[in-house]
């Protein structure tokens, strides 16, 4: 189901957690809400769920205004960060809960409920554990029970708040792949909150990057990574360096060094240049930006070198791991791809 959030503002005791947020969620997609702590991701998710009500603004489910609907009416599946499994119920009872509490007219017979719950436990690969209690499961298993429980009510939208937040890196990666598979198999419209950009980039069809209660940018992982629309997004997603530059007739200059031509709307005056460490070319000494090696560390298969460009400006570039250089050597490079933002 399509979900449209339009001009939503949410205040807690006069403190605005969300300012004028709009977001279109397409039916069947897996969309990530990504942003630093306190940016309003959980608040937005809870507003969609109906666990909070917006101060102003509307939320549509399909073409219907759902702003006044209760949580129950919205028929959402919510997976809480700390799972919120019912500790006094077995795994099977947890998963069946949503079906058991239905009014008699829509409640399936007991045998059918059991069959569906077992089927879901099979889907989340927990067959055989249905008689256990939540405290007898590992974190990753609890997470999967929480997902099965949410899926049991055949929700219109599946909402997950930092579903893997409390798990270690190894389990996170496994569950991530697995969530993608489940999503592809069941086709639920899914919104998940994360502050792990790697997770968001890898898992989602689209990302919504948030900062301080605003939506900064919405787009596919490629768009977000390659064409960040604001300095915040550029700085927040992936590694990047920024340098103050001046534009003279569309030419980008850092001090006396020409870096290239500006193709954007900015043509003259001071600006900020953003580039990623792997988007640089190493050039002959003096033929580009030159800096001395300040520090270096190994990142995966490359060596990330921090260069001191003078005047307290630092820039990070990637070098092949086997390239030899000495400490405090001078290295010249030129950004291959970059983005310019006004010097605000």
């Amino acid at each position: 189901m399509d979900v449209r959030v339009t001009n939503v503002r949410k205040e807690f005791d006069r403190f605005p957690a969300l300012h004028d947020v709009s977001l279109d969620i397409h039916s069947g997609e897996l969309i990530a809400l990504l942003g630093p702590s306190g940016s309003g991701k959980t608040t937005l998710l809870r507003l969609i769920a109906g666990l909070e009500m917006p101060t102003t603004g509307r939320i549509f489910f399909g073409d219907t205004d759902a702003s006044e609907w209760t949580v129950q009416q919205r028929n959402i599946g919510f997976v809480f960060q700390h799972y919120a499994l019912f500790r006094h119920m077995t795994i099977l009872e947890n998963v069946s809960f949503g079906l058991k509490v239905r009014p008699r007219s829509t409640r399936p017979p007991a045998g059918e409920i059991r069959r569906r719950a077992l089927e879901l436990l099979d889907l989340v690969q927990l067959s055989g554990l249905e008689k256990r209690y939540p405290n007898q499961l590992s974190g990753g298993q609890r997470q999967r029970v929480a997902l099965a429980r949410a899926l049991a009510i055949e929700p219109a939208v599946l909402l997950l708040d930092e579903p893997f937040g409390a798990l270690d890196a190894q389990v996170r990666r496994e569950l991530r792949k697995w969530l993608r598979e489940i999503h592809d198999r069941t086709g639920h419209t899914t919104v998940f909150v994360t502050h792990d950009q790697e997770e968001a980039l890898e898992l989602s069809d689209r990302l919504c990057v948030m900062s301080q209660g605003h939506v900064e940018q919405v787009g596919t992982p490629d768009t977000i990574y390659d064409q960040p629309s604001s300095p915040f997004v550029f700085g927040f997603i992936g590694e990047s360096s920024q340098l103050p530059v001046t534009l003279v007739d569309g030419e980008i200059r850092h001090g006396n060094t020409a870096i290239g031509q500006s193709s954007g709307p900015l043509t003259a005056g001071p600006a900020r240049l953003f580039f990623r460490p792997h988007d640089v070319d190493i050039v002959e000494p003096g033929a580009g930006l030159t800096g001395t090696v300040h520090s270096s560390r190994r990142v995966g298969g490359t060596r990330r070198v921090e260069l001191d460009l003078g005047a307290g400006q630092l820039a990070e570039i990637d070098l092949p791991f086997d390239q030899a250089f000495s400490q405090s050597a001078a290295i010249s490079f030129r950004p291959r791809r970059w983005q310019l933002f006004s010097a605000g």
Partner: protein
Amino acid sequence: MATKLTARRRRKASPTSESPLVQGLLIALSLLFMGVILLLPLYAVFHEALSKGIGSYFAALLEPDAQSAIRLTLLVAAIAVPLNLIFGLAASWAIAKFEFKGKAFLITLIDLPFSVSPVISGLVYVLLFGAGSVLGPFLKSYGIEVLFALPGIVLATIFVTFPFVARELIPLMQDQGSGDEEAALSLGANGWQTFFRVTLPNIKWGLLYGVLLCNARAMGEFGAVAVVSGKIRGQTTTIPLQVEMLYNEYNATAAFALASLLALLALVTLVLKSALEWRFSAEIAAGNH
């Protein structure tokens, strides 16, 4: 010399553990204290109650006034405890799950009966419902007696025992938060289903614990009840009041026979309480009582 030092240091397992002598002294002192203050009186109660043989013990319990006192005590507890269970649940629910103005004040108010002398609590009801008050004569004109009758005793008991359930549940419910309830709602459960299937099972042991303490106090309350009951023999005397009256009449055997019932209640409560604590300590909020 050096080895001796390290050996001595090693024996001191933690920096706060005292030497064996001090430990022994402290333990002996506590045991002595417990013996004198708790066990000795308990022994004395049963000893005195049975001093004239088991026959007169039961005769004292079967005596009509004693029977009436037992019945009244049970009746008062049967009314006061369920009401306090509901009040306590409602109050702790409101405090733990909602934000509202005056919350801190409500919490203080709940503790009030603990900090007011029971006699004063009783006197407040005398002022409220006595002959000189507005309410008393008004109710009397409709044939409702509050003072020196069952309603007054129940009211005073409720007042004195109000905090037990609420004090037990508030920290427990605050600690559990409302995550489980939100999960239940998101799965389509309505308010009642959420309460009976999720909230209540989550707090049931804490609730039972609170009710147990509430009941023990309700049956044993003396001060507040003494003021409002008027001590009409065979009508408004509860067990504790009857014990005092018998004792003042130098009928020690009968007094201690009735008192032994309260002592038994205390013992049973203690055993149940320990069993609950042992079995469900995590589900019963610590730091109370």
